């Protein structure tokens, strides 16, 4: 019985860690302060509802990963790993991102105290979350374009209060 349980747990763990979605992404970050736009691209992998990674090919070496409560990143060689239990701002950002990717945008709206609007555009569903009150940190507006057929985001736009706008576009989406 004990052996059987161990096998079941191992199988479930394997299934949970198995890759579900893979895509190419492009990142475009407009910094209003300078008027510059920073471009980046790489591979997006979604393993489960709380595990994803973005591996950059440009700039090479950078990554952004979420694994449960841990958010880790490598930004131009500066590596960090944050326990989101200890960091409220990063926790909200992590939850917002994962909820948006997983189609749980209502939850993301609640977490960010945002108003929502949903429109259909060219066969896709466009969800907009507008944060009601300005805050020192976080997003002011989030726009997610879901592919209507599978509810997977093909474009995510995150606007910050300081005017910085980061746009992610997904392509070559492969589901496993």
């Amino acid at each position, binding site marked *: 019985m004990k052996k059987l349980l161990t096998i079941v747990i191992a199988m479930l763990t394997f299934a949970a860690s198995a890759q579900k979605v893979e895509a190419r992404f492009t990142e475009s970050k407009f910094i209003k302060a300078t008027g510059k736009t920073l471009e980046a691209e790489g591979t997006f992998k979604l393993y489960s509802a709380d595990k994803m990674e973005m591996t950059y090919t440009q700039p090479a070496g950078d990554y952004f990963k979420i694994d449960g409560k841990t958010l880790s990143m490598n930004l131009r060689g500066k590596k960090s790993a944050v326990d989101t239990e200890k960091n409220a701002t*990063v926790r909200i950002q992590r939850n917002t991102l994962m909820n948006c990717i997983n189609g749980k945008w209502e939850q993301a709206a609640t977490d960010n105290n945002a108003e929502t609007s949903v429109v259909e555009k060219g066969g896709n569903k466009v969800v907009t979350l507008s944060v009601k009150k300005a*805050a020192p940190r976080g997003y002011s507006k989030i726009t997610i374009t879901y592919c209507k057929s599978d509810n997977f985001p093909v474009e995510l736009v995150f606007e910050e209060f300081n005017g*910085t706008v980061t746009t992610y576009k997904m392509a070559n989406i492969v589901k496993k």
Partner: protein
Amino acid sequence: MKLLPKSDESECGVVFGNVKVKDKLFMQMTGAAPEVMVGYVDELMDSILTNDDGIANTLYRLEPDMALNALDYAMMHVPSFVDTTMYARFDSAIAHADETMARNYAMIMNDESGMAAELVSTDPLGLRECLMPDISGGMGFTLIDGHLFCADSTVALIFISPDFQTFNSQEGGKLINHLRDCIQQFNDKHPEVEVLMHGAVVESANNASTMKRDIGITIGISLVLILLYLCLSFKSYNIIWQNVLPIIYGTIFALACMYWIKGGMSLMALGVGSVILGVALSYCLHVIVHQRFVGDVEQMLKDEAIPVCLGCLTTIGAFLGLMFTESELLKDFGLFATFALLGSTFFALVFLPHFLNVKDAKHSKKAFKLIDKINNYPYDRNPIIIIALCIIIVVGFIFSGKVQFDNDLKNIGYESEAFKKSQQLYAEKNDHGGVQRYYAVTSTDLDEALDANMAISATLDSLRQSGELINYTPVASLLFQSQAEQERRIAAWQRYWTPEKVAQAMASVKAAAVKNELSPDIFVPFQAMVEAGYEPGNLYESGIVPEGLLCNFIEETDGRYLIFNAPQLSKDKVGEVSDLVAAKPHVVVMDPLYYTGSMISLIHKDFNMALLISSIFVFVVLLLSFRDILISLLAFMPMFLSWYVVQGWMAILGLSFNMINIVISTFIFGIGVDYSIFVMKGLIDRQRQESSKLLEYHKVAIFFSALVLIIVMGSMLFAKHPTIVSISECALIGMISTILITYTLQPLIFHWLMKFPFMKRRVEK
């Protein structure tokens, strides 16, 4: 700390007992470029932490997420970090927005990640510079790739907090050995760098190992030589076990009694107490030597039982005086010595005679001829010796008041060259040419301690501004505030950031942005920050500050909170500043020597009281035994005079008393009284013509006893440990003067007294 008396008045007893900051171990790496040492430190620490037994926490790098978490916490509780005095600087920052914005522009343009833009949009006026004047810099450290370095980046710093107390020498020894092994393996791979370490645990482990080695070598070798000499003198190897067995019995008996009464004892008391076994050896020698002469156990016991018991009783009296002191170590020592003497004397008089061979009276005639020559020399009739001895005693009396008592406990500890080098390097790189002192605010209530800490920080800060301190950053009061103080600060924040002030600041910021070619629309986060509502937080319990760093600021020990302030100050200001700070409520100076100065004086006074009690006890015993006040005074004389000779000649030779060797002086009294009792008993018996040989036999035993002790004590002069050397110096002066007085003045005065018929009658009756 067992050395020091318990203090009911101050909180220092509670604080020093378990406080971890004093036990911190400092490790330093030097000899390579900082970027290289970053990797080396990680490599060394990975190897050390493979076995983290005995390690509570380490601090050598700050994890990258710590900065993010700290920033997040700071953003959520900004007003809590704003002292009301900072608002004047805020006004100045608003007025100088142009200059700050020019710096912001340069920062944003040089950053490719967009992080700088985020920072500027939240804090365009550089208010963070008003709030935190570089805490890491204030602590004297530089961060390189998250790793701690000294200010000039030449030395990488590692702090290790043990999970045991410094005085746990067993655990300390294990940890230090582990660290030394790791450092050795690391140095084999990277010989170009040097790794040094110091701290209380290292010092304690060094002391223990040096003391063990010194005692092992000096006493071990000298005992082997002495036993060989005894074997040759008595032409028998039995003499070895006959001497050693009572001592082993006495030691086991004493340890068992200590366990039974106290459950344990100080290792240092045990180490010092081992010297007392020399006195026990003296009793065994009296029994064995006398047996060898008379060859009759019954006769031997008749002759020796009273003087040995009397000697034992008076020596115990000398040691029991220590029980009246407040020092745990002195009490342990007194109790251990008492039981050890009781046990070994009991064995020597009750068990040992059963094993003595009644027919065994062999001894080397050559050896004994020399001993007889020395013993039978009429010292009391040689005017040169008498005059010389009188001069020695008079000079001793004159200079006795000038002997110094060394209050500095550091001088009785052993510091290796590597240890000193590490200390010097740390002081040179981090203490700005001064010394660092920890002042702790303590309370059972964290908020009360935090409020009291604000007052101390203000005092220290004003001392820094007036130049009394070399350096001081009030890190603890900048980071941690009580709930009430946070509420006050939040209210002050709200009073300051009125809508008018916000409008004024925003206008100033936007104008400066336009002037510096930055978008004026990016400062929404700043406005949101100053207008937001805030609640008090609890940084101490937030888990954001890692334990290794947190314990530098706040420590919770036995339900008591300690908040530390660590200014750097010149050595000559330490006393003055410490007095000033210690006068504040809830403050403890985290420097044992600050309190030990007065505590040691207390022990010194204690000791003088113990000495008086011991002297009275010994004299009463002598009086009861000899039943004559003059004879008792005569027997008491060597003990009395030798104390002044010891004090005076130590002063002349530039030696000083310390906490350890002053205890050994009780041992000198013990021995002095013993010798004088045996000689007095011999003189009385000869006067009564009961036995003309008894004095001779006693003198032979005294000769062997003194020889043993002088060789052992003499060998200790070659030890490395300063405590052992100081014991040896003190004991040798005492022993030699005691023997000289006992062999010369005691018979001289006795024979002079016998010229008076009334005295003769009293002695002979």
